[in-house]
Every structure is written in C-alpha cells, then in structure tokens.
C-alpha cells in the first residue's frame, strides 16, 4: 500500500511509507508464450528494521543507523542543515552550483519528465520515485529551514515539512533510488536537471556528514586511494593477474602476448575498470590481442591508482572525484604517454574525460579519449582481418548512459557492430534516448541488505523488458543471443538480471563487451573467442 501520495506524506510515521509489491510492478513481455517468473522481493528482517533507516520503501541502500537519543537526533539534523547551506556556497560547491540553483529555482513541476524515468514507470508509478519528488522535497526543506520563510509564505509554498531524523533518513535513501541516468533532464524544456539534485543530496550527506553506501565510499573511493583499486587489487596482485591473463590468451588463441606495463613514452595509456581483471578478464585479453595485432604502442600501469579507471566520486562526492581524477592524470604524466584511452567503463568515461575536464589543468591536462572511436579506427582501417560470419548470431547493443546521453558517443560502437555482426539489431529506444541498465550510479556494486532486489526488480526492469523485446523474433533458447554491454557496471547489472530471471538457460541470452566481439571475428584466431557456457 502506498501511503505517500504527496510530498507532505514524507512526515508520516508509517514503516514503510511505500510498500513495493511484485504485482504493482510494470509487466514484462511474454517470451516463448510463458510469463517471466517473478522471484519474490526480499524484505528487511525485524532486526534490520530496528537497526537501519529503511522506512521509505522497505529497502536499504545506505544502511543509515537510527539515532539512539534525542541529542543524537538533534546533532544529526544540525549537521544536515549545515551541509544544506554549504551546497549554496561558491567556495564549497562551485562545481555544480549553477545547475543546482537553476534546477531548484526554475522547475515548474509540469511533470513532463515523469514518464521518462525508468524507475518511476517500472515501479508502477510510485509517487516517491517520480523525478520531481526529491527536488520538491528538498526545495520545501530549503524554503523552511534555509530561506527561513515566514509561516504564511511557507503555507503558500506548501513548505511546512517537519524535519526529523526519519525525514532526513528517507531523503538520504531516496537519493539512492535514482540511477542518475538523466533521462528526465533530457526531456525538460526548461533545462532543469532533477537527477543532478539527487547527486547533490548524496554529496551533502557524504561531504558534510560522512554518510554514503559502504560499497561506494569505504570499499570504493577510499580503498582505491589507499590500495590502488576498488576491487582491493594491489599493484603486486595485479602483476599476478596479468600473468594469468597472458596464459589465458595463449591457451585461447595460441598467441604469445606480453602485456606492456609502465612503458614510458607509450602512445596510449589504457585504463580499464579493475572489475574486469576479476570478473571479466576476457575483456582485458581482447584489448591486448587487438592492440597487439594492430601494433599499437600502448601500456598499462601498475602504479597505485593507474590500473583502475573507476571514479565512484562522480556518483556522490566531488572531493573524492577530484582526488581520483588527479591521481589518474598523475600516473599518465609520470609515464609521459601521449594520450589516455578509457576502456569499456561508462562512468569512467564520463568522470575522466568530461567531468574532470574542469579539474585537470597544466601538465595534468593530458588528452583523454574513449576507446570506442579508437576501436572503430582499428576495425574500419582494415589493419585487422575480420570475418563477420564468426559473429553470425543475434546481437543487440545496450548503450551505457554515461557514454551516449552524457557524452554523445553514439555511432562508433554501432559502425563496429554493423561491420562485424551480421545479425545486429537495435533495442528500442537506443542511442541518447536509451534506458539505464538499472545498475547506474553505483547500484550495480551495492550489495548490502536487500538493495540488490530493488535494483534487479525495479531499476533494471525497463532494461530487461527492452532486451526481451529486442529478441522477440529469435526467442528459441537454441538460438544463442548476445547483449553487448560495453561497460563494467552495466555488465554487472546484466549478470544479475540474466541470472535472476534465468535468461541464459531458458532463452539463450548472454552478455559481454564490445571488444570481445571484435576479437571473436578475427580471422587469424582459430577457435571462437566468445564462450557460450553459463
């Protein structure tokens, strides 16, 4: 039952405020004349309910402990209000002040953005997930507690929200129910960015109160800055992994490739998401095979911070974002490379190439580019002999939001697929209008409590629907189908969607990157590079 029908309901004591039921969710298409089986949603245990703030929708992303005393609650509110004020101070928030002010001051709440949000639609249009809900809640809190509107003005603007730890906790959780895909931003005729407001709320909690999901902060940016990678891989461990990868390449292709490390003056420093080293080493292998075949003067780095392209800071914290971007640039500077190439990782593209563009200056301002146009150049140049018949199976492309809508790189990956995959088919919508995989903005790595259930069932639901619809005409499980997801986070989400709904066993659907398809088409490699086993 949804007890939250309007903003003011955020003050209600009900726990949860909105109950998510499988039956309310957007329906999925039938495949092979059977409805997709809906696994039950995991509920919080009584103990978890007591321990964490989960009263928004019965899911916990952050794991915010409830205050134990009145004094603790007052301190919590005070810190929150301090942080809120800092969001509007130039020195503290020059980074996003103008977009934030624009979005808070000029949204006319026409709700044009609502149906562009996959979370809102997939949830069965739950009010709390409407893209305008959190900004409006924040706006009303600001009116009352920062602008200190008089009582009669507050009535005129409906800003009579009573601030307590539950409301603040719900707001914090709410900021982690938006994947920051910014589809809502794209359709706004006034230029309002409601997704940015979600990120600004996250930032306030992190930069002022030290509150952020553990997977993103402690195990994420903090660990990356400390040991070199969010995966925990240290520089010596990386060298072992690379040895393993070289052996794998030999076994799969017969090629003896020595992966270059820390080559000073190389043309290209390739930055991978370190998740690939552990979960998808075939992606690293494919890049190495391809670069070797094309005689590229490239290198990887085993320096601290030089082998993990991720920058989780873009999801929640400007300070951490800046630190990581500087660290990446520092590694490239020391190696004296001509340029940095970001591999198949969407948010790393956006973070390092676009956002850090106004963080890196002087000798840290080293040219940075996406792997996609680079790969396109290799594929279309004819340097490598490719046989498209090796990829003669249905392939669809999932567009990572960070690469298409937030960077405008749309065609290079398509030109590659059109050349090497005879059965390439688009999912709808695609390109800059794509839907998020549901794992964006850190969701794919947030595995605490029951949050993964929310991610798979709600934020990933629209993508699941798109995939099933894309393969509508090739339903049979005997027909092997490939979802090309050229981004580590997206792949993590695909893995969970496919396994939760049994798509590989039942319908022959698997996922992988782009570069694997290129190597799979290489004519001088005897065995298929892509393995279809579950």
């Amino acid at each position: 039952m949804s007890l939250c029908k309007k903003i003011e309901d955020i003050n209600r004591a009900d726990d949860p405020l909105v109950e998510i039921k499988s039956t309310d969710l957007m329906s999925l298409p039938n495949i092979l004349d059977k409805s997709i089986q809906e696994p039950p949603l995991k509920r919080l245990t009584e103990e978890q309910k007591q321990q964490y703030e989960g009263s928004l929708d019965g899911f916990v992303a952050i794991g915010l402990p409830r205050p134990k005393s009145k004094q603790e609650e007052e301190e919590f509110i005070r810190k929150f209000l301090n942080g809120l004020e800092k969001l509007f101070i130039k020195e503290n928030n020059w980074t996003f002040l103008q977009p934030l002010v624009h979005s808070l001051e000029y949204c006319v709440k026409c709700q044009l953005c609502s149906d562009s949000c996959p979370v809102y639609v997939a949830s069965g249009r739950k009010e709390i997930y409407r893209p305008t809900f959190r900004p409006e809640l924040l706006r009303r809190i600001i009116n009352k507690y920062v602008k200190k509107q008089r009582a009669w003005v507050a009535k005129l603007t409906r800003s009579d929200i009573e601030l307590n730890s539950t409301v603040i906790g719900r707001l914090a959780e709410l900021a982690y129910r938006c994947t920051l895909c910014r589809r809502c931003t794209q359709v706004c005729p006034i230029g309002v960015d409601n997704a940015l407001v979600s990120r600004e709320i996250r930032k306030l909690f992190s930069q002022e109160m030290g509150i952020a999901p553990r997977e993103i902060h402690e195990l994420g940016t903090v660990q990356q800055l400390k040991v070199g990678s969010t995966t925990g891989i240290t520089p010596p461990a990386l060298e072992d992994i690379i040895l393993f990868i070289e052996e794998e390449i030999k076994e799969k292709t017969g090629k003896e490739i020595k992966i270059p490390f820390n080559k000073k003056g190389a043309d290209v420093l390739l930055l991978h998401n370190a998740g690939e080293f552990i979960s998808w080493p075939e992606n690293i292998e494919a890049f190495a095979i391809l670069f070797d075949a094309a005689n590229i003067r490239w290198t990887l780095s085993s320096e601290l911070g030089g082998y993990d392209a991720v920058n989780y800071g873009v999801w929640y914290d400007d300070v951490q974002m800046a630190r990581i971007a500087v660290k990446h640039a520092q590694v490239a500077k020391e190696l004296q490379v001509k340029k940095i190439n970001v591999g198949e990782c969407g948010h790393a593209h956006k973070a390092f190439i676009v956002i850090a563009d106004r963080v890196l200056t002087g000798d840290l301002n080293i040219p940075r580019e996406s792997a996609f146009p680079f790969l396109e150049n290799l594929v279309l140049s004819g340097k490598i002999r490719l046989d498209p018949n090796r990829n003669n199976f249905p392939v669809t492309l999932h567009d990572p939001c960070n690469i298409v809508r937030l960077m405008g790189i749309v065609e290079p990956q398509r030109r590659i697929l059109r050349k090497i995959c005879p059965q390439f088919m688009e999912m709808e919508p695609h390109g800059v209008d794509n839907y998020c995989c549901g794992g964006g903005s850190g969701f794919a790595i947030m595995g605490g409590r029951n949050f993964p259930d929310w991610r798979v069932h709600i934020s990933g639901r629209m993508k699941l629907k798109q995939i099933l619809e894309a393969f509508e005409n090739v339903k049979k499980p005997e027909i092997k189908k490939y979802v090309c997801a050229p981004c580590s986070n997206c792949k993590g989400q695909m893995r969970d969607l496919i396994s939760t709904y049994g798509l590989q066993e039942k319908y022959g659907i698997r996922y992988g990157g782009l570069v694997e398809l290129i190597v799979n088409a290489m004519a001088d490699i005897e065995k298929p590079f892509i393995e279809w086993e579950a």
Partner: protein
Amino acid sequence: MRILLAIATYFAYIFIIFMYSIKLKKYLRLPLHLRTEVYPVIPGDQTPKERSYYEDPDWWTRPQRHHLLQRVWFLFSDYFLLREYFRRDRSYWLFLYPWHIGFILIIIFHILCFFGALASLLGIPVAAGSPSIFGNAIYGLTLAAGVISFISGLFGSIGILIKRLTDKGLRNYATPQNYFTYILLLAVFLSGLYSWYFDPVFSVYRNFWKGLITFKPIDVEPATASHILLFAFLLIYLPFTRSLHYITRLFGFLLIRWDDKPNLRGSVLEKKVDEMLNLKISWNGPHVKPDLTWKEIASEAIVREKKQVSK
C-alpha cells in the same frame, strides 16, 4: 484615478525591470561549473544529431565546432512551439500552448502600444488606412497581438487551471501560489478582453500610453482601467514567481545543458578552472580536510596515500 493608473504603471515597469535585473545578475554571476551536458547538444543537427566531438579519434587535434546560432535559434523558436510538450503530453500542450502564447503576446501588445503612442507623438498616424506603412503595421499588429493574446490566454488559463486541479501528478505538486498565479493571469486576460469590447482598436490604450510618455496622464473608461491595474499588479507580482524561467531557460541550455566547451591546455577556460581550484572549502566530512583549497585537497591524497603505501 488617472494618477493612480499612471503611478501604478510607472512603478510596475520600473519594479519588474529592477527585480529581474537583480535576479539575472545573480544568476549570471554564479561560478563556472563542472561540465554536466546532456546530449544531443546540437539541436536540429541531422548528421546524426546525437554525435559529439568525442566520436572523433584524437578529438583535441581537430578544430572546435561552434553552434551558438543554431542553438539560439532552436531556443527562440521553441517559445512558439513548445516541442517537448507537444511530443510528450499533447493534452497538457493543448492548454499550455495558448497560455504561453497569450503571455508572450500580451507583452508584445504592451510594447506595441508604447511604440504606437510614440509614433503618434512623432506625427505618424497609427490607424487603419494610415498613409504610413509603419503606422499601419503598428495598428494592425497591436490589434492582432491584443486580441489573440486575450482570447488565447483566457482559454489557456482556464484549461491549465482545470488540468492542474484534475491531474493527480500536477495537483500534488501545485501550491496555493501556483493557483493564485493562474487566477491572476486569467483575470488579466479577461480584463483585456473586456477592455477590447469598449476600445475595439485599442486607441484609448494608445492614448493612455501617450499620456504616460508625455507625463500627462489621461482618464480611461473603467474596463481599460481595470486591465491597466491588473496588468501592473501582474508585473509587480511576477518577480516573486518562477516566471524568470522564460529567460533563464536560455542560459540553462546555453551555459549548462549544452555546455560542451573543452578545457584545452593554455586556454582562457583553463585559467578560470585554476581560479576555482584555488577556492578554499569548508566541508566537514571525515574524509575532507577543511580549509584546504580544491587543488590542495585533490593532490593531497596522492602525497598522503603514497606515504602510507611506502611504509
């Protein structure tokens, strides 16, 4: 009465110009921000429209593309089309469009009244069949702008009010102030229509403006007086609403949504970025050291962490 009408009009115009200038100045003085563009950033480009310069290998070696005119044209033309509303919510567009057109035309109507009065004072007859093309044009345009504005605005105001009240998603987010704005605009358009009934070619209105320009206010009949007062009140009230979005929308797109200007080494932009990086922060999170500049805090991690690893 004529003094009241004149003072109200003078004050309203001075007030709105003053308040809008302050608000715009404040908006435009907001600092440089990190890039946060959303694609497509080149509206109307069909080759294909979504592409960015990041699709080019070694993009930094290629000449930068400029699309300012294309972008400005798109934004201005959208005032008269409201493309996204038409595309995504036709029933809302049906009322929003006439409402917006009514608002734009009422502003144009008053500007034309002013120029009509000025022309008349300069000896150019402003009337149908005037020997001056300019006088003829001003006459016709004023009449058209006024009549279309009042009818369209009235239809839109009623429609948008009904839509806000009946659509759950809109109603839940509407404030008493929103409803007041709708009703005020409705009254302004209605009074305009009412004044037109008594002043079918707006000659009284033009004469009122002549009086304002020459500081010799004149009396007008009650219908026109009610419209003048309501319109003056609207001008005073607008700065307290979100109405500036008519203008800030342009900057929201040009300076934020479509701002894809790269920070090339040695550029003016790079200097501006450096200035921002030298600002001191005061966040209190446990991982943030306050009172350091952005530049210090970003590079401090490297030094500190390197020391830790080497231990």
